[in-house]
């Protein structure tokens, strides 16, 4: 252990995480570390346990064994709300948006703002104006100017715009970590570029990002470190500078033994 590694406490850390589904092993003692201010990509073949790992970190699943620490403190996430309360926001591959509701409503879905005073406390009246204003500010802060109206239904948006709405929601409330699950999988070239820019913008604002992706060019373009998951375990952590994409794929598929490599910090 060198000094810098000891000085830096991971923002979020998983130690020996185990999760089984009947006879299927999702996680088999997986470790995980995300450090402040970095973009960490998580790659792995289908069934390597990427999704299970992320679900445990985001509170959507409870691991059978192992420990999760946030800023060095052990936590026990029972549901998504627990992780959110700790400042961890997840953008799911399915985006988790309500297509018929408008952009502002989706950004504040489940966290609506009520009017001040009696209107809000007794009549439970929503503050449509405040939510629309903040939603607009949030989208502008992320440099998403292509959306015509904040009161547009999400189903009328393109795939990239929907992704932007989901990312904006996460960025608006995520104070600690943003997790993005396959954010570019359904997007074209130009829209993917916008999402990658969003990821860099989030990091530049000081928010560490976990990026789950199958797309090696995207991973090598934005990631600071790459966590390689295989058969329910972390087999290696590499950097885009130290390892080529083809070697990363080789480690991912087991053609190359990743455990001999040092864990990149």
């Amino acid at each position, binding site marked *: 252990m060198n000094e810098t590694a000891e000085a830096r406490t991971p923002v979020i850390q998983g130690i020996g995480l185990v999760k089984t589904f009947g006879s299927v092993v999702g996680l088999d003692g997986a470790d995980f570390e995300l450090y402040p201010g970095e973009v960490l990509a998580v790659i792995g073949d289908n069934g390597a346990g990427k999704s299970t790992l992320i679900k445990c970190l985001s509170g959507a699943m409870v691991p059978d064994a192992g420990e999760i620490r946030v800023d060095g403190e052990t936590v026990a996430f029972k549901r998504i709300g627990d992780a959110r309360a700790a400042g961890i926001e997840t953008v799911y591959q399915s985006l988790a948006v*309500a297509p018929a509701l408008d952009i502002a409503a989706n950004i504040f879905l489940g966290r609506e703002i009520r009017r001040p005073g009696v209107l809000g406390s007794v009549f*439970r009246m929503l503050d449509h104006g405040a939510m629309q204003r903040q939603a607009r500010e949030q989208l502008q802060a992320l440099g998403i100017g292509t959306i015509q109206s904040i009161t547009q239904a999400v189903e009328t948006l*393109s795939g990239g715009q929907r992704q932007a709405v989901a990312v904006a929601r996460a960025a608006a409330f995520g104070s600690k970590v943003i997790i993005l699950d396959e954010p570019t999988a359904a997007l074209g070239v130009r829209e993917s570029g916008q999402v990658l820019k969003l990821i860099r913008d989030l990091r530049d604002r000081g928010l560490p990002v976990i990026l789950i992706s199958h797309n090696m060019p995207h991973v090598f373009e934005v990631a600071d470190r790459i966590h390689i998951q295989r058969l329910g375990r972390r087999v290696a952590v590499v950097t885009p500078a130290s390892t080529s994409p083809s070697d990363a794929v080789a480690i991912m598929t087991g053609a190359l033994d990743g455990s001999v490599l040092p864990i990149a910090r």
Partner: protein
Amino acid sequence: MSAIQAPNVDPAEQFLHRRTPVQRIHHVLHAYPALSPLVVLILASLLFGFLNPRFFDPKNLSLIFQQVAVVGALAVGQTIIILTAGIDLSIGAIMVFTSIVMAASASKFGLPGPAALGLGFIVGTLAGGLNGVLVTRLRLPPFIVTLGTLNIFLALTLLYSSGQTIQESDIPSLLLWTGEPITFASFKITTGVLLMLGMYAVFTYILRNTAWGRHVYAVGDDAEAARLAGIPVTRILLTTYLTAGFVYALSAWILIGRVGAASPNSSADANLDSITAVVIGGTSLFGGRGIIIGSLLGALIVGVFRNGLALAGVDVLYQTLVVGVLVIAAVAVDQWIRRVRA
């Protein structure tokens, strides 16, 4: 400066955003789901007024409102359930059961009016809640659950009433209050009609301006997405069914006033009529889309068609046939509207 403004959108983009007149109509209907039933209601009224000028007689218009009061009230409950992508087939059975509970607890067991009414509200709300518990806890499809409770409440109604109608003279005046006439100029409606309109006002507010209302839409739109967005889906569904039960109790009260008695055999068609009103009103059976005021328009459209066709001397069987055609047309329009693209 030349007269021609330099376009700040490039021509390709402009071409992509060009819309045909049909696409424009499509967009407007998508943005305002109550518009198509409103247009149908106005056109139908004009047509029937042309066929028989007595249609626009204030007495006749008042009659239409009185005729749709019960189905209109029930449709409020049916709408919020359909918005969650559910359906309630037990709606009429619960209403009739509740009306019998209200009337019989006064006539048979001597409860005073307010207590009988209060008991009815508790029973109606719990009956709706039973559907909610079965849907959320046993995870059964709402169609099956309410098909079962439909029969259960029909049987309970006959058991509790011994198959007997409770006459007006045995019912406390509070329960009959919803039948009290109110006169506006030459229009004569009842307090029941006003109560029904009030319910639409209250639920329009709730669905538009509260977080709960928004969550009802989100759950019906995509329940899994709503869960991942942190919405307590089970709680929303359960409270929706409980609220619907409360609405059925209100409808039962309106029913007693409308009929002037409590009969175990009344409102056999209320189930399908309420669904008809919701569907014609533009609310999608797939959930998550629609507007509650549309259901009032839907109930009025059915009322106007039945009344107008009767005034035009058309046989009652054809009235039912026309309602069937309306339902199919409404669902077809809904499917078309849902296919909107940016």
